[in-house]
Structures are given as structure tokens and as C-alpha cells.
């Protein structure tokens, strides 16, 4: 009798399970529970978690907030496109918007200071991928997600778009500076 024939014992559900299976299932179950409880554990004791904070928004509303920050805190511009570099005070609300095909503006942050980073999209879905530290977020139009970030290594970071957003997807590249 094999796996593709009806079970040899008609009352198969009363056949006792072998010790080997019982031992393995027990070990596997314990491991499953450990993995499950690691996630709440990390919320309490770990430092890399996402807040539940998010708001419904519109491209127009979000765009206004971004512009307000740019008007107040721009310190210089970069490249021919005059991309503003914005250096808001530590602890403040900072914004980055994704649109075809730009991350806007460039942020200049202080090391070991915490900021409330708001992200949203003006048009299609985008993927905020901060490199090389490798932090990745989904950016969805109509939703404003808030992350409390504390960059703890100084340097120049690229912001890659890692959600496909059309033909110019590969040119969608932003920047974050983290200063000592």
C-alpha cells in the first residue's frame, strides 16, 4: 500500500503515531513558538521596529507639508536640478516624498538624533530603500507613514526606489546625509 492508494488500515486515524514523528513534531512546535514570540519580544527589547502610525492623505496635502519644510530649512541646493538639501532640527517632523522619478528633497540629519520621518507618494507606489544600510519601506500613495528614525552612523546614503514605477524607475535616486 502506498501514498497513492487508499490507506491500508481502513481506520487509519486510530493507528498510533511513531515516536520519531512525535519527537520531531514536538521539537518543531517549540521552534515555531520561539520564532513567534521573538517578534513581540523585539517590539519590547529590540531597537528596530515600525510604529503603527500612519495617516490617510492626498498628494496635494502631503506636498504642501513637504514644501513647508523645504521653505523653512533648506541650506543649499545640489545638481543642475537644484534639489534642495534640507536640514531640519533634531526631533522634528521631516518629510520625503516619492514621485516619478525622484525622492524629494535631500535630507541632512544629525547622527544619533531622532527624527519623525513622514513618507508618501505623489503618484504610483514606490519603495524607499536606504542604502547601504539596507532599510526598506513600501511607499503607497494616499498613505502617510511615520517612522521614528535615529541614524547612528555618519555618512552619505543613497535612497534607491525598489518598487517598480515605470520606465525611469532606475533613475529614481535620492540622498540622505548623516553628519557627525
Amino acid at each position, binding site marked *: 500500500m*502506498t*501514498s*497513492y492508494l487508499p*490507506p*491500508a488500515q481502513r481506520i487509519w*486515524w486510530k493507528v498510533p*503515531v511513531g*515516536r*520519531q*514523528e512525535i519527537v*520531531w*513534531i514536538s521539537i*518543531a512546535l517549540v*521552534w*515555531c513558538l520561539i*520564532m513567534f514570540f521573538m*517578534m513581540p519580544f523585539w517590539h519590547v527589547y*529590540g531597537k*528596530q*521596529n*515600525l510604529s*503603527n502610525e*500612519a495617516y490617510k492623505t492626498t498628494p496635494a496635502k502631503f506636498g504642501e507639508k513637504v514644501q513647508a519644510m523645504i521653505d523653512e530649512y533648506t541650506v543649499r541646493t545640489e*545638481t*543642475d536640478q537644484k*534639489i534642495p538639501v534640507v536640514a531640519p532640527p533634531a526631533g522634528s517632523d521631516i518629510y520625503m516624498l516619492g514621485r516619478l522619478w*525622484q525622492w524629494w528633497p535631500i535630507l541632512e540629519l544629525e547622527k544619533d538624533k*531622532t527624527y519623525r520621518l513622514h513618507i508618501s507618494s505623489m503618484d*504610483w*507606489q514606490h*519603495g524607499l*530603500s536606504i*542604502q*547601504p544600510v*539596507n*532599510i*526598506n*519601506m*513600501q511607499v*503607497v*500613495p*494616499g*498613505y502617510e507613514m511615520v517612522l521614528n*528614525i535615529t541614524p*547612528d*552612523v555618519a555618512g552619505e546614503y*543613497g535612497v*534607491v526606489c*525598489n*518598487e*517598480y514605477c515605470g*520606465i*525611469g*524607475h*532606475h*533613475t*529614481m*535616486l*535620492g*540622498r540622505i546625509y548623516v553628519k557627525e
Partner: protein
Amino acid sequence: MANFRICPDTGLYFDRSAESLMKVNAVAAAVSLLVAGILALGVALTRWPAVHLLPADQFYMFLTAHGIDALIFWIIFFEIAILYFVSSTLLRSRLAAPRWAWLGFALMVIGAVTTNVSIFQGGSSVMMTSYVPMQAAPHFYLGLILFAVGALIGCFVFFGTLVVAKNEHTYEGSIPLVTFGGVTAAVIAVFTIASGAIILVPTFLWSIGYIAHIDPEMYRIIWWGMGHSSQQINVVAHVSVWYLVAGLTLGARPMSEKVSRFAFLLYILFLQLACAHHILVDPGVSAEWKIFNTSYAMYLAVLASMIHGLTVPGSMEVAQRKKGYTRGMFEWLRKAPWDNPAFSSTFISLVIFGFIGGITGVVMGTEQINLIIHNTIYVPAHFHATVAVGTTLTFMGLTYFLIPVLFRRQMILPTLAKWQPFLFGGSMTILILFMMGAGTLGVSRRHWDMDFAGAALSFEYSGMAYTMMGIAGIGAVVAVIAGGAYLLITVGSLLFGKKLDPSAGFLQSFGVPMSRGTYTAKHEVVPMAKAVEEHGSAGFEAPGTFVLAMLLLVSFVVYYFINWKYLSSVWPLS
């Protein structure tokens, strides 16, 4: 009265209408795989940085079509054939409503062609996921809907056949384990297709201007109710085929019917929650929701896979030990029929699926760890381990069995066939490991140019990331060649293979222990005491498998905590 052919090699009963349907579905699957493979070559040669073959628009077009042809059309056509096999053939029953089955098949073909046409017209390079508000041409969605309706009809024909078999008493006792796996797959398929209908029908209406707005986050959640669940159908289907091939090639029987069926039941109950795997870094979804769903409610579906991970090779070991391969821990494995591509495909698939596909899936599906993996090329690495090696290689192996049994042709190029599973599994493993590495270094998936040519700003990936993408490219090219070898062998055998006369005993050359009388034998009544003894509850009947399982567990634990360590090194977030 149904018209049956009894296979002289195996004693399997083929209902004539079911047989034709299995053949056409398998052929449609092979055609889809051919297209997907050619497209894969274009994708791989573009992502290989030193080659960078296609222009951006063609790359995204190829990638969209590759995903849909490989992940949806190839696999689901094949799965419909499997559903008919495990119901009609294994239960020796006529197929319920063959005309409906043909209608379903026709819809699937029309749908597959329609969607492919829409993609190659150029206006629908939206990736398999077609996230709104990016819009494809209306017939892109329409093709997918037609295909899904056809597949749904196939599922109901399968359920109908179970009813027919039960009413006509074509078998005694319970349905076989493999058929039970088919039921599991079909139940999940119905859920999956329902999710697909809920989201794709409105999206189609939106694309023709009838609906003004689709909420993009809602789209993601419901789309993945289809997108991820459909991958779970594949898991269930290929696990069932593993049991089937273990039975066909080694005469293996389940270590415990109860345990294996219980594990399938866990899939039905929990697998669908996996839509959350794609939503872990999304806005507007709470951590509690993510944790509960991403872990399939405390990893109960992972538990199911870990159970199959023991019981499938365990059943092989028990069967081999009965044949006298009892020396040491692993003689049973060394003396397994590695020459038989049906067996080697299955075993390679089992190992890679478990050790790479399973472990990476759980790791990247951990709520916080997803932060360092989401949308990197690590993601396609994971699902090539599960779907390309897990599902596709398993189905390739089953095809080698079906050519003589279902199509009654002798296989051509048997030496190539013997090596094909190793070549495909090996090259895919290279592709997978190096894409995992590149993903860990932050390389993005679905991305035409890791040099960001034309961007206002600049960013440079490490040299190691380039090297890894190059090696992955080589792996991919070899995998395409290996996939080509599979198609060459199967299609060549159908066209030019020697027709097997009814008395030819092809499978015996593989040592397949089946005879004409297998099915007609009356069930012996096994006393309970003897049953206990046979299942060896006193000791470990498959010690070698247990060692392998512990090896899996250790790899799992180590790799899991390495990723937590890696996560702890990135910027604090809260």
C-alpha cells in the same frame, strides 16, 4: 459507462476523457514554460551587470511576462493536470463533467494568450503584481480573470470527480494521501481565486474607466490574498507529488497517514494568512495584525511543512530499509535510484525547498527582519528556491514519469534526462545563493540598472554586489539551458519517442514495484497490534532522515538568529 485504458506498466486506470485533458493541460504548461524560459534569459542577461542586454522598456516587459508565464500559467496548467490525475486516475473513476473541464481549459488558454498579447503589445509592463495606480491595458486583467475562471472550473471538476468516485464505489476506505493533498490544493485554490476575483474584477472595471479609484493599500492586501495563496497551492501540489513519486519510485508509503493528513489540514487552516508577508513594511497596518498573520498564527503552516520535511524522506528511508539498504545512517540514500530523473528531481527539490526556500521564507517573513529584505533581490532568490526548484523541478520529475505512462512514449535522450535534474537544481541553487547575497547588500529587485544611469544623484553598490549579480547571471543562464533540456526531452519524446506497445514494461527498468493487480487487490485487514508494530512506534524507523531533519533545524536556528543580529546593526527605528 466510462471508457478506461489500463496502463500495462503501472496498472493505473486512465479515463479516456481525463487522459486527453491531462495531456492538453500538460502540453499547455510546457508551452508556458518555454515562453517563460526564453524570457528568463532576457531578464538574467540584463541583470548580469557586465552584459546588461535589453533596453529598459523591454526588460520590464520581459520581466512582467516571465513572472506571469512561469508563476501562473506553467504551474497552474500543470496543477490542473495533476488534479485530474489524483482524482480520476488514482481513484479509478470517470471524470465528472468532461465538457465543463474542456470549457475550463479553453478559458485558461484564451486567458493566457490574451494576457501575453497585452504584455507584448507593450502597454502592460506592470509586473505580475500590477500594483495600482499603475495601470495596464484592460485585456491584461481580463486575460487573468478568464484564466482564473477556467482554473476554478477545473477545481470543481476535480471536486465533482471525488463525488462520482465516492458514489460509484471505485475505491474502498479513505481517499489516498496524494488525493487528499489534491483536495487541500483545490480548497486553497478556491479561496485564492475568490481573492483574485474580488480584486481583479474591480481593477479591470477601473482600467476601462467604470470605477474611479482603487485604494492601493487595499489592492495590495487582497491581491496578495491571491498572490501568496497561489504559491501555497504550489507548495501543497508539489508536496503531494513528492509523496506520489516516493510511492512510484520506491514503493514508499506514508509513515503515518494521520500525521501527513493532519499536516495538510494545517495548510488549509493557516496558509492563506501569508498575504501579510508582503505587507510587513506597509503603512496603515498594525504590528499585531502583521505578527499574527505573517506567522500563520504561530507558524502552524511552517510546522506543517516541517512535518512533511520529515515524513516524505522518512517514508523513502523506511521503504529502502525494507529492501535491505540498512547499513549505517545513509545507505538508503546512497542506494536510492539517482538514475531515475523522477526520483532525483523530487529529492533535490525537497532539499532545496526545505533548506533554502523554507528557511529564507520564514526569515524574511519575520515582521522586523523584513525591513532589511523587502523588495531586494533576496525576495526573488527566495521564491526561485520555492517555486523554481520546489515546484517546477518536482513537476519536471513527474513529467519524466508521465511520458511513458500517460503519453505512452519512450523517453528520448535518457542520459540527458538523468543529468537534467542535477543541472537545473545545481544552477538554480547558484542563482539563488548569489541573489540572496546581493539582496543582503541591498540590490533591488525589478530594477533595470544598478548603476542608476541617468539619475541626477549617484549611488554605488559595493564591488561584491556586482560580483554576486554576475555569478547569479551565470547560474541563471545554465538554469535556462537545463530548462531547455527538459523541454527538449519531453517535447522530443512526444514527437519522436518510440511508441510504447501495450505490453512494454518501461517502468520496471526503474525498479518501479507496481503491477497490474495493485489496484484490484482486496485490502487486507491489518490487526491493530500488527499496525503498531509495522509503524515501529517503539523506535526510530528512519534514523537517517532524523539526522537530516536535525541538520535542517540547526541551519534554520543559526540562519534565523544571524538575521536578527544583522537587523540589530541597522539604524534604530520605532
